[in-house]
Structure formats: C-alpha cells, structure tokens
C-alpha cells in the first residue's frame, strides 16, 4: 500500500478531516492551469536528444510543460536546455541489477506513478515506446554475486 492511495485499484480514499486539505498526487496540483505532455526518449542516441528537445519544445512548449522521460545518463543535455526530465534505468542497467529489484513490477508501478504525477494530456514516444520498454523489463533473478 502506498501512502496516499493514488492507484485506482487501491479503493476509495478514506475520508479526510474537514480541516485537512485532501492531498492530490499531481506535481502541479496547485497550478491546475498547467498541462503537461510526456515525451519518452528510450534507447535514443545521446546526440539525437538535443534535436528532439528542440523540435518538441518548438511544437508543444508554448502550450504545455514538456517532461522528457529518458534512459540516458547524459542529464546535462536536458539541463543545458532547461528541459524537465524523469529518468528510467535503461534495459542494460536493468539487466546488470536484475538481482537487486524486480524491475518489471517496479517499472510498471513507476510508470503509473509518473502518469499520476504529471497527468499528461499526450504521451509521445521517440525510440522504443513505453509499453515495449515495460514489457521487456526483467523479473528479479536469484543473486549470484557471492
């Protein structure tokens, strides 16, 4: 169970006391005019990222907050362009650390959480799409490192 019961299948939220404002899991909950789109950049060559950021910013940046979802570690490309981004470990990272976490379960939850957090009006994919990425996430393997 999570803390705020953000997943629909968790059932109805308990009633909150009158004096406690209900907390909503959305990053712009207090800025309702703000809308977001998610642009996934999975398995994209680092050099292409700059161009995609420029293109998508021109196309959508005036109306929406653009959130890039990347598996690249080259965070400065985003920072240098003042781009908001979230990170998901790449397929290679998942494979390297398959004994430490159940990636398929975690990433499925993580994606749903990101959808709740950003409440995007669109999801645009560059490279591998998010469904394929999530479907390929490995289950937890037995530890063999000792």
């Amino acid at each position: 169970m999570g803390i705020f019961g953000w997943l629909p299948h968790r059932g109805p939220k308990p009633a909150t006391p009158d004096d406690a404002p209900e907390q909503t899991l959305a990053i712009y909950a207090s800025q309702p005019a703000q809308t977001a789109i998610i642009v996934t950049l999975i398995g994209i060559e680092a050099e292409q990222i700059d161009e995609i950021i420029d293109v998508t910013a021109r196309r959508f940046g005036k109306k929406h907050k653009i959130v890039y979802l990347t598996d690249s570690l080259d965070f400065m490309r985003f920072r240098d362009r003042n781009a908001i981004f979230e990170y998901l470990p790449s397929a290679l990272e998942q494979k390297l650390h398959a004994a430490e976490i159940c990636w398929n379960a975690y990433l499925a939850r993580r994606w749903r959480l990101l959808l709740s957090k950003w409440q995007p009006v669109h999801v645009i994919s560059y490279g591998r799409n998010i469904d394929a990425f999530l479907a390929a996430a490995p289950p937890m393997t037995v530890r063999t490192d000792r």
Partner: protein
Amino acid sequence: MSAALDVLFVADVRFEGGTSTALAVEIRTAARAGLRTGLLAIKGPLLGLPFPMHPDLRRLIDEGLTERIDPDMRLHARLVLIHHPTIIENRPTRPLSITSDKLLVVLHHPMYDGCGRRQYDLDRVVAHACDAFGSDVFLAPVSAVVRDSLPQRLPPYAHMLEEDWGNLIDLDDWAAKPARQPAYPVVIGRHSRPDPLKWPTAEEVLLAYPADGARFRVRALGADAFLAEKYGTIPPNWELVPFTWDDVPAFLGTLDFYVYFHDPAWSEAFGRTILEALATGLVVILPPHFALLFGKAAVYGEPADVERLIDGFVRDPERYRSQSEQARRFVENNHDAAIYADRLARIMAAPDKAVAPQGGGLFPALPQRNVLFASSNGIGVGHLAQQLAVAQRLPPGLTPVFATMSYSMKAAVQQGYQAHFLPHHRILDADPEDWNTCLAEELFELIAHLRPAVFAYDATAVFEGVTRALGAFPDIFKIWVRRPLWRESHRVFLDFSDRFDAVIEPGELAETFDHGPTAACRKETFLVPSVLHLDPAERMARQSARAALDLPEGMTVVAVQLGSGANFDMRDLRNALLAEVLRRPDTIALEIRSPITPEAAGLERLGERHRVVELFPSFRFSNAFDAAITAAGYNTFHEQVLGAIPTLFVPNEADEMDLQASRARWAELTGRGWLMRRDYDLGFAAAHVERLLDPVERENVVRRCRSIAWTNGARDIARYVEDHARIVRTDWDITKLGSL
C-alpha cells in the same frame, strides 16, 4: 540452506559497558573451547543514541571467532543465549527462523532499581523470547542481587537456572598490578561508563572521594562534564579521564585503592568494573550491599568510613598485600573465563550430531541486502561523492543502490551501482507541497521494491516527502549523514533528526569554527573522522598523473576548481586569478570542470597554457598539481588539506551553502591554505597568486597539512551501516503499529 551453531548469542551489541565486555569474554571463551558460535545483533529499547557496535564484539567478528547472523537465516543452535532481558521486552519486529535445543535469557539487571521502579516486565520478556525462538525459557540471573529481585512465581514457560550466570574475566587480559606499598598521597580511583547514576549523591561524594589533595588523589575513568553538572565544582585533586574501552588495565595499575559508591537510585546487578579492579589485585572499598557478591574479596563501609579504611591499610602494609592477593584469588576461583566451557556444558544438551568445529566447514553466506543511499542535489556532487565513499567500503554482502536529486548521478552508475533520479522541485517549477506529495510516493515505491536494510540519507535539507515515505517503513534502519558548519537558516532541519535512527556527522577540520545549529547536538550524533571519497594514498603517482593529463614535468601546475557557478557567480574572480597564474611563463592552469557545469557557464580558454578538463574524481590526479585554487565545500576542502595540496580557497558564500568561509579561515589561520573572498579580495588577486606560487610558502603549507593525524571516516560509516544492516529491532512495539 540451514546453518548449525553450538551457541547463538543474541544481544544489543551497542552497550558501552560491562554487558558487552562480559559478552565478548563469553564468545571468545566459547570459541577457544571449540564451539561454533554466532552473534545476532538486536536494537533494543534502552539505547536511543547512535552507538556503534562495541569494539570488542566487532573484533570477534573480524577475527572470525563468531559468525555474524542475519535474521533471515535459517539456523539451529544447541543453545540460544539472550543477553539482557530488555532486548526482548518488545517482540522482534520480524519473524525468525531460528530453533534451539535450549533457550536462556541472561538477566543482567535486577527487576527493580534502587527506587523500586520496575526495570523490565518479566512476563513480556519470557513470552516474547518463547514466541520468537519457539521453546521454553531458562532464566539465568547474573548475581544473587538479580535473583532476589525476581518473583517467586515465574511466568508460564519460564524456568530458573540454579546457578548464577556471573560475569567472567579473561585473566590474561587483567594482569595483577605491580606490588606497591601505599603511602600518602594515595591514589583512589574508579571507572564506569559516563552516567551520573554511577556516582554517589552530592552529600556523600566528598566523603567517598575526599578533596584533601595532600592525602588523596582521585582518578576517575569515564568521568567528564556530567560530574560538574551533578556536583558543581570538581575538586582540584580529582583527575577526570574520558571514557575509553581500551587501556583499563593500565589505568587500574596506577591506583592504590578502588572505591566505588553509586547513587541510591541505581541498582547495580553485578558490577563488572569492580570485578576488573579485583582481578588486578586492587584493594576495593564498596558499600555493604556488595558483600553478597564479592564476600571477603573487598572491604565494605559507608562513604564516611572510606578515609578510616584507607588509613588502616596505609598503616599496615602487610594487610594491604594480603587483601590484594585475596581479591585476585577470588576472581581466579569464581570468575575466571576458564570455567565458561564447563558452565555451557552443564546446560547444553548433548548434540544429536556434532556441529562443525570453529574454522571447520563453510558457514552459509549472509543473505544479500540492499542499502539505499538517498541524497539531495546540492549544486555540486558533494553528497553523492560522500555516499560513494561509503558505498565503496561496504562488504560484498551489501548492495548499494542510489536515489539522488543530483545531475551527476552518472558517477554512481559508472561505478557499477543501480541508481534512480528524483528531480528537485526547483527544476520542475513545482510547488514544494505538491512536489513533496509526489516525492513521498516515489520514494515509497522505490523502498517497497528494494526492501533496503538501511536507508542512508545525505543532505542538509530533510524533505517532508522523504520523512513521509520513511514513516511507512518503521523497520528499516535510517541514517542521516549531515556535515557540520550549518548556517543558522538551516536550523529548521534539526527538527527532523528524530525521524532517523542515527545521525552521523563526518569530522570537520575547521570544527572549532563551527558554532552553528548542529554544534550543540554533537552528543546525540555518531561522530566519525573526516570523510574522503579516496584516501590520499589511493591517488595516482605524480608521474602517472602528469602523463595521464599530458602535463609536462618542469611546469608548475595550478588546478582551478571553483564549482559549477550555479548559485554563486565567480566569473570575474576566476578570470582575474587565471590571468595572474598565466602571467608567469612556467605555469599551466588546469581548470577542472564539474560534471554538472552548464554549457552556458562558458569556461572559455584564456591561452595555450590554460586547459579545461572534466575529471571525476579529480582528487585521484591531484599528485600532478603543485598548487590549487578551489572553493571550500566539504569534500574539496578536506581533500586539499588532507592531500597536502597548497590551496587558495575561494569560498562559495551563497546563502544556501554551508559556511565555507569558516573552513577557509581555519586553513589560513593554521597555515594549511589561504583564503580569498569574492566580494572582498578581487583587487588582490596578484598578491594571492604570488603567495600561492612561492615554493617556500607552499612547502610550509604542505608540512602543516601532513602533520594532521587522520583516518577516513567513510570506513567508520561503512562499518556502522554493515553492523545495522542485519539488526533485529525490538526498540519499538510492533503490536502498536496498527494498520500501517
């Protein structure tokens, strides 16, 4: 795979005093007797402060004399020994898969203190021990004092051992003190852990420990400022020695008489320190109630009798010698560790089949556990670098995983660690409250899937999102590593200290300049030496480093590292300093770019001898440098000074930063570097660089820096993490957890 032990010791390994010392003797003696033993560490309810594992117990694990046990291991022990009843007064918060032929709880403490207050609930102790290990409970009081405090009618499933489980001493560790005839001024002494209750009342103290310096010197180990609080003025003939685990025998060897009186509110179950004094052959003077424990090995009286009793021995050296011998003999006959093997044999059932002897046969590996390192962004890589320092020193059975707000997260991934990014609200342009709500849920999901044994947080700011997520996992051991030299504006974060099980403070060279919010909290933190990512000895040799960086010999190389500039613009100062360095024909200015320097920062080259490189960790190459110009963040500052690199420190004085100017001031005033401030000293760049490049000045700084005695605190933190990663918690009552 199931493991088998002869004896499993279950104990709160953090006790400072006699409980741990006695346990260490038992484990060592059992190992000598060829028994295979294990140690299951408990975090009991008595100790709230972040004590580390007792060094005697740590040594036993390090030497392979006992096995560290993980609570998830399946094992059978012929005997399970729970040391101290309070550690099982609450139920363990996780199920154990440990079975035993016999389960024994050693009662180190009377059920009631000197004021009649109950110290533990025996019914709960027995019930919880029975439930956790699945067998009847045998109670083993350490002394007649404890035995007498117990109820006649025992709880269900409890049985009383007929013999007391008295403390033991390895006499090899406690040599008899040299024979010496006492003469005025005699030396009266005592030792105990630093606790005011271990000392008599203010009315009695000067009777037991006289202030007459002509006749008495009073020497107390384990005494410090708390005595001044208890008594007011400390007499000038008293010598207070801070508590230490080492060198107690040597301390006792300096005394003529051992005098031990305590507060009436305290009830001493046994008095291991008294036993240690007797073992060295000291003449020991005690209150009469101890006669039940030590018989003729000591002499007894009230505080008012102390001077008279001492005088009697001073006047009769033969009686002094005889009493001294009697003391030592008493310990040899009743408390020598050599009797332990027989004691165990009396209560352990004969094994169905032999357990592999010590050193024989492989013991199963400890289950792998994750350790989650979480850090805020800062404007650099400092928090992450500190955590990498700790992670790299963890043993193979613990897997570091990182969750950070730092743009330099790649550094963790490149070192082979799993890492997750948690963007800070500032870069999302989000309301902090909305962000904290999301952060709590994101961290919750990560923790729920990783199931880390330890959560280690490194930051000055504690976010509500973090504490809310942690609140959902009361069983995870939570550590907050916070560096000193806070600004007053950071004080608000101190309120979050109690959300963590331990606060660790890495040592600060400029500690005497720290009067900030954390300075008053040091007693509540685990203090470790200064933390460096790399030890100075791990650096590349000068020739190799120069070759790797393509720096020719014969040139004076000045490394310049003024940070990312994200929150404190140093461009003017940088340009002035670089110009001064490059004005000389034999210099190279090697500007080290932070991995998170934005492109917009525009580190334009100012000439052929100005080179810009990205290095992480740059300290690895620092033997190539002759001098440096750097900011004074914790990591860089300590690397420069402990690495003996002559450095001109330019503090980042942004409001959100720690007090870097204080560090740099310390360096300048102790001859270990120089200070230059952006807003005060811009006009003096030439003079600063001239001094920095003066070989004599640099040599002086190097010499001063090398005089600092230091060990890497990263190792201490790693060991602390290791010791708490497999701990069973009984410090909170899981029955009250409700639906969380």
